[in-house]
C-alpha cells in the first residue's frame, strides 16, 4: 500500500530532520519543570492543611493537571501545524512531488500517507506529553482525573482537525499562506471561546447570550477551542463542575453533538484535501 510508504517517509523525515528529537527534548524539559513546580506546590499544601489535607491535595492537583493539559493541548496543536504546514505545498513548490506522482500511485494515497505519518507523530507526542503530566500527578499525589482517556481523545481530535486543515491548505496555497490560514482559524476559535467564557460572567442576559452565540459560531467555523473545553470538562473535579467556572472550562460545556460535528468536520476537511490535491496541476 503506497500510503504506508508515504507515511513511513513522512515519519522518517521528521526523525531525520531532528524534529522528533527537538520535540522530545523540549517535551522532557517541560515535564521536568512542570514536575518540579507541582512537587513543591503539593509539598506546601501537604504541610499547610490538617484534616482537609487530602481534599485540598486533590483540588490543587486537579487544577494543576488542567493547567498542564492546557499547555499540552497548545503545544500539540502548534507541533502538528508547524510540522505539516509545508509538507504538500513545499514539495509542490520544489517539484519533489513530481517523481512521486509519476509512479503508479494514486494521488489520494499521497495525502492519506502524509496524514497517517503526521497523525502517528502527534499521537506519540500527545501520549508522551499528556501521559507525562498525568503520570507526574499520579505518582506524586496518587491523584487521577475523572476521565483522562476521553480528554486525551478529544485533544487528539483537535490536533487531527488542524492536521487536515493544514493538508487542505497545503494542497491549495503556498506554505506561508497555509500557515496564516491554519493559525488564523485556530486564533478565531481561541478568541471566540474566551469571549464566550468571559461573557458568561456578565450580569446582563443579553450580553451573556451574545457572547455565547459568538462562541457557538466560532466553534462551528473551527471547533478546536470547543474540543479543548470539553476535554477540560472531562478531567475537571466534581467540585469545579459544581461551581461551574474555571479558567479552563466554560459554564456550559460543549455537548456530544459538538463532538459529532467535529468528527464530521474532520472527515469533510480530509476528503476536501484529497479532492483538491487530486484535481490540481503539479
Amino acid at each position, binding site marked *: 500500500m*503506497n500510503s504506508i510508504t508515504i507515511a513511513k517517509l513522512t515519519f522518517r523525515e521528521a526523525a531525520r530532520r531532528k524534529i522528533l528529537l527537538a520535540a522530545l527534548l523540549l517535551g522532557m524539559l517541560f515535564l521536568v519543570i512542570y514536575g518540579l513546580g507541582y512537587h513543591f506546590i503539593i509539598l506546601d499544601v501537604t504541610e499547610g492543611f490538617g484534616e482537609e489535607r487530602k481534599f485540598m491535595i486533590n483540588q490543587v492537583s486537579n487544577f494543576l493537571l488542567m493547567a498542564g493539559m492546557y499547555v499540552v493541548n497548545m503545544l500539540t496543536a502548534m507541533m502538528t501545524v508547524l510540522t505539516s504546514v509545508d509538507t504538500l505545498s513545499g514539495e509542490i513548490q520544489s517539484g519533489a512531488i513530481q517523481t512521486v506522482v509519476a509512479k*503508479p500511485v494514486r494521488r489520494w494515497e499521497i495525502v492519506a500517507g502524509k496524514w497517517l505519518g503526521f497523525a502517528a507523530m502527534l499521537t506519540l507526542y500527545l501520549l508522551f506529553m499528556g501521559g507525562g503530566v498525568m503520570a507526574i500527578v499520579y505518582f506524586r499525589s496518587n491523584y487521577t482525573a475523572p476521565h483522562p482517556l476521553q480528554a486525551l481523545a478529544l485533544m487528539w481530535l483537535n490536533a487531527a482537525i488542524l492536521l487536515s486543515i493544514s493538508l487542505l491548505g497545503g494542497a491549495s496555497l503556498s506554505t506561508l499562506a497555509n500557515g496564516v490560514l491554519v493559525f488564523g482559524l485556530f486564533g478565531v476559535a481561541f478568541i471566540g471561546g474566551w469571549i464566550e467564557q468571559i461573557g458568561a460572567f456578565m450580569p446582563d442576559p443579553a450580553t451573556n447570550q451574545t457572547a455565547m452565540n459568538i462562541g457557538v459560531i466560532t466553534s462551528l467555523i473551527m471547533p478546536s477551542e470547543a474540543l479543548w473545553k470539553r476535554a477540560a470538562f472531562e478531567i475537571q473535579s466534581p467540585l469545579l463542575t459544581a461551581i461551574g467556572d474555571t479558567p479552563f472550562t466554560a459554564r456550559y460545556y460543549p455537548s456530544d453533538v459538538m463532538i459529532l460535528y467535529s468528527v464530521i468536520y474532520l472527515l469533510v476537511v480530509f476528503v476536501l484535501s484529497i479532492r483538491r490535491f487530486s484535481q490540481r496541476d503539479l
Partner: protein
Amino acid sequence: MSQSAFAIETRNLRKVFGDKVAVSNLTLSVERGEVFGFLGPNGAGKTTSVKMLLNLVFPSGGEGYLFGQPLNDPSIRSRVGFLPEHFRFHDWLRGDEFLQLHADLYRLPRLQARRRIGELLELVGLTAHASKKLREYSKGMLQRIGLAQALLNQPELVILDEPTSGLDPVGRRLVRDIIRDLRQRGVAVFINSHLLSEVEITCDRVAFIKHGEVIRVSLL
C-alpha cells in the same frame, strides 16, 4: 497488458492556463522501442506536454494514451520511468534510501529492489556514494541518481526531460550510452530537449514543437 503498437499516442492534446495557451494541439505517436526526440525552443510547451503524459498536469482537451491506456490510469505508470527537468528530491535521504523509496512506490519486491538498486548505482557510477545524503551530491550526481530512479522498474518507456542538463561531458556520454542500451533492449525513450545536437546523436525520430503544436516530425 495492452497490445497497442504505440508507447505514446496523443490526439489534439491541449492545455490552457488561464488565458495562456501552453499546448495548443499536440498530436503525435511514439512507437515501442524507438528513441523519440521532442525538440523545441524554451517556452514551446515541451515540459507541459511531458507533464500531461504523466498526469502531473491535466489536459484541457484532447486525448492521450500510454501503451493504449488513458493517461489518468495510474497502473500504466508502473511501465514508465521519468526523469523531470530540474530534478528535486527529498535531500535528507541517502542515495540508496532514495532509490529504495522509489522502488517501494513501484512496489518492487524487496530482494529484487535491492539487486536492482545495486545494478543501477553501478551503472550511473554512484556505488561509492550510496550512503551519502543527497544534499551532499553535486548537480551531476543528482542527475545520475535521478536517472537511476527512472530505470528502477525496468520500464518499457522512459521519459527524460532535458536529461543532460547539469552534466559534464562524461555524464552526457553516460546518458547517451544508457539511451543506446535502452534502445537495444526495445525500450521506448522520449527525450525532451532544446539541444538539436543531443537529439541528433541519440534519436531515431524527432518532433519539432512550436507554440504548443507539432510542426514537423522527421526521421534522423
